């Protein structure tokens, strides 16, 4: 049974002065997330990622379509006992301390006082907020608030966790910690769905991704499948090539690059066979043939053309 | 960041000087505004029904506000009278009317009106008719309060209508808790009209029946006035005797003392000497608050 299943989920907003014009924020989105997966939601601003999460959390209501969380329909509020959610750029009650806030969240799950005390301490430790736990949230930095957000998403030890832009506001160290946390959660058998703009994280973390643009699904699947589908070239690595070989390769390939005693030729899939044959003919030593993965950025740019490409965060 | 030792003294200086200036200018404003504000006061007084309607249920509080205004109005005009002016007390009835419409149970307002609306100038507007109107309103709203009948009887008495006065005392005597001697007073007033003895009894009862300082003071002034009237009658007899004896009217009290008619300079109930005027009339000290029919104070 999939942990999360969306079927033709659609959301229209009525805009305009008389609220007559429908603006489609999500267009018949269908996907399924298996248990234990780390699933990425990707797309430029306005793609519908946050809209999807808001629909799943019942913060807004769908125009049509359905969804199932852990096998339960959308209007089952009780399934939220097993769900955690980190909103984008979260804002919490600034008159509470982190400890009080987490305790409040825990109360909403009906945990006993001892359980609450234990879980809250654990989580504060886990997200690195033990020292600041008793300061009011109004004094917290963006990064600290992000950690509180992660803590409150995990307070009930959920089976399915939604994270809307979890790396936002964190420094590189923090991002690594969150990354490790997500991997740890997967090891515990939890399912994680997160939306992000940080492409390298997607590449390292996600099993599968859904790529959204303007409310529509543009791609769904394993990342390397998606990217390989568009793999445009291969790299042929040759050791100690003779000049003749180098010249021959330069004629075939659309890019040749020398690095020390090695030669790297970039060829299209069509040119690949010819290039390998060329190396064999010249008696060169073929070290490797690797497909060039387009980066996600390339994929985006290519797919969405001149549309806005999500900003790359610093690669850590 | 300006250090404290620099801005504190400057702030204090500016605060004090500025504050003093504001106070001074405000005083000027008050002075120049004075007549304007009073006129506004006199021009606009809403009708009682509308005030009640607009009070949105907070009429008890508003009644206290209008009561305070009524008392202040009376006090201000009374002061003017004692300074020698001729005040009108124009708003007294209206303010009391509004007060009692807002809170029909504010008993003191009716009694205050009874005493002071009847008071003849300069101490009041001299309008017993308005006093009666107010009291009848009070009786309608508080039928078991016997004192209103007393006050009504007293208003008629002071106005000289002994018939109605007697009737009021009589009706009031029937009410629960009424003073027993009201019945006696009813009969006597009907039979004999007004005299000093009855007035004294009536004013004493007013004095004892309230703890409102204004009413008590007025009662005492009236009682003192009755004493003054007695004194003046006595003194005038002595003056006549002196004139008969010596053939000339006395010019000073000393002459009477030397003639053995007086033991000392005659003093009014407050302890001030009576003034013997050139035309032979006797007056109280100037600015005396005593209400006497025979001796003026100016």
């Amino acid at each position, binding site marked *: 049974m999939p942990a999360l299943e969306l079927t033709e989920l659609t959301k229209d907003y009525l805009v305009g002065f008389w609220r007559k014009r429908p603006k489609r924020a999500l267009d018949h989105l269908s996907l399924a997330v298996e248990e234990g997966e780390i699933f990425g939601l990707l797309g430029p601003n306005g793609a519908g990622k946050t809209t999807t999460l808001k629909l799943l959390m019942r913060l807004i*209501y769908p125009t049509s379509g359905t969804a199932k969380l852990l096998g339960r329909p959308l209007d089952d509020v009780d399934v939220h006992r097993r769900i955690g959610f980190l909103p984008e750029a979260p804002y919490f009650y600034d008159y509470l301390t982190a400890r009080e806030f987490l305790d409040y969240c825990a109360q909403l799950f009906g945990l006993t006082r001892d359980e609450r005390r234990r879980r809250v301490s654990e989580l504060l430790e886990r997200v690195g907020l033990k020292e600041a736990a008793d300061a009011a949230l109004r004094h917290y930095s963006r990064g600290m608030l992000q950690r509180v957000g992660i803590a409150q998403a995990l307070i009930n030890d959920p089976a399915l966790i939604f994270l809307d832009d979890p790396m936002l506001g964190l420094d590189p160290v923090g991002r690594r910690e969150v990354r490790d946390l997500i991997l740890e959660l997967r090891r515990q058998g939890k399912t994680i769905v997160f939306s992000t703009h940080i492409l390298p994280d997607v590449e390292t973390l996600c099993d599968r991704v859904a790529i959204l643009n303007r409310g529509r699904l543009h791609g769904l699947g394993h990342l390397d499948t998606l990217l390989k589908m568009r793999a445009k070239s291969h790299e042929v690595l040759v050791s100690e090539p003779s000049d003749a070989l180098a010249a021959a390769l330069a004629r075939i390939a659309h890019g040749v690059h020398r690095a020390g005693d090695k030669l790297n030729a970039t060829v299209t899939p069509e040119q690949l066979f010819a290039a390998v044959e060329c190396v064999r003919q010249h008696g060169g030593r073929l070290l490797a043939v690797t497909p060039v993965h387009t980066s996600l950025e390339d994929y985006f740019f290519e797919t969405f053309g001149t549309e806005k490409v999500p900003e790359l965060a610093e690669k850590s | 960041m300006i250090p404290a030792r620099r801005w504190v003294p400057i702030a204090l200086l500016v605060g004090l000087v500025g504050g003093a200036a504001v106070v001074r200018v405000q005083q000027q404003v008050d002075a120049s505004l004075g007549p304007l504000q009073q006129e506004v006061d006199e021009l606009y007084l809403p009708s009682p029904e509308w005030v009640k309607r607009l009070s949105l249920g907070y009429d008890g509080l508003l009644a206290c506000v209008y009561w*305070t205004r009524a008392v202040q109005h009376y006090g201000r005009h009374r002061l003017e009278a004692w300074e020698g002016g001729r005040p009108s007390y124009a708003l007294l009835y209206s303010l009391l009317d509004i007060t009692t419409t807002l809170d029909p149970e504010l008993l003191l307002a009716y009694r205050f009106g009874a005493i002071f609306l009847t008071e003849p100038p300069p101490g009041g507007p001299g309008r017993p008719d308005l006093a009666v109107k107010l009291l009848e309103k009070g009786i309608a709203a508080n039928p078991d309060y016997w004192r209103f009948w007393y006050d009504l009887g007293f208003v008629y008495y002071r106005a000289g209508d002994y018939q109605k006065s007697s009737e009021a005392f009589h009706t009031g005597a029937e009410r629960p808790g009424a003073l027993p001697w009201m019945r006696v007073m009813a009969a006597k007033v009907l039979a004999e009209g007004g005299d000093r003895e009855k007035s004294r009894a009536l004013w004493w009862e007013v004095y004892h029946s309230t703890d409102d300082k204004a009413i008590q003071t007025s009662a005492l002034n009236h009682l003192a006035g009755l004493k003054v009237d007695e004194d003046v009658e006595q003194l005038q007899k002595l003056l006549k005797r002196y004139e008969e004896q010596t053939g000339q009217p006395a010019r000073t009290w000393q002459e009477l003392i030397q003639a053995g008619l007086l033991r000392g300079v005659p003093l009014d109930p407050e302890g001030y000497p009576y003034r013997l005027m050139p035309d032979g009339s006797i007056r109280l000290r100037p600015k005396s608050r005593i209400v006497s029919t025979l001796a003026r104070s100016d």
Partner: protein
Amino acid sequence: MGRIGAIALNTFRETVRERVLYNLIVFALLLIGTAILFGQISIGVQTLILINLGLTAITFFGLAIAIFIGIGLVYKEMDKRTLYALLSKPVRRYEFILGKFAGLGLTLLVNVALMTVGFYAALFYIRGASGPENFPSLVAIYFIFLQLLLATALALLFSCFSSPVLSAAFTFGLFIAGSFSTDLLALSKAVQAPWLEGVMRALYYALPNFRNFNISTGVAHGHGVPGVLVLHNTLYALLYTGLVVAAAVLIFQNRNLK
């Protein structure tokens, strides 16, 4: 303690940490204290002034609290999006509304209690030791509390769909209109056209009748309060407040959060 209780206590905690509250209470107590001074102007009405002014002060300061905090109850959470984290937990929308209402109600209870203590302190100072004549004032204060709950419910309702400024204006406007109700009924009888009379009578029943609860004038004169009135006013308050809160639940339930 259930989810509604958790939300209520959290709301209470929020209002207690709102410093505006303390200022209002101090002002109210000051006002009650100065009522003693006002009384000096005309003795004989001192108690009258104290009771009238004291009860009015409790009403209006309580109303200020109910409105200032009530208008933000739901609006703030929607605007600041603290609701995102909250509703992702197994919290039903109606539980949220009820919890918010209960929290502010609790705050009002504490504040009214504090002001009542100040009020009676002043009363005992003037009137001396306690006696049965002091009891009607307590009933009057209970009625004031019912008014405040009603005002809170209205502020809460507006908070679900309107900005704070408009919510404050609407709530206060309804308070004024509701205090005007008896006069509305009287006016309707004086009106010539029967259709207008019908409209005004309908309006009379539709508006929240705050006038019902205003007995300070009578109480100041020591009149007792008939038990039937207590019962009826309580029922009216519960009923009307319940309807308003139910409307708030409905509106909030269907609302797409931004």
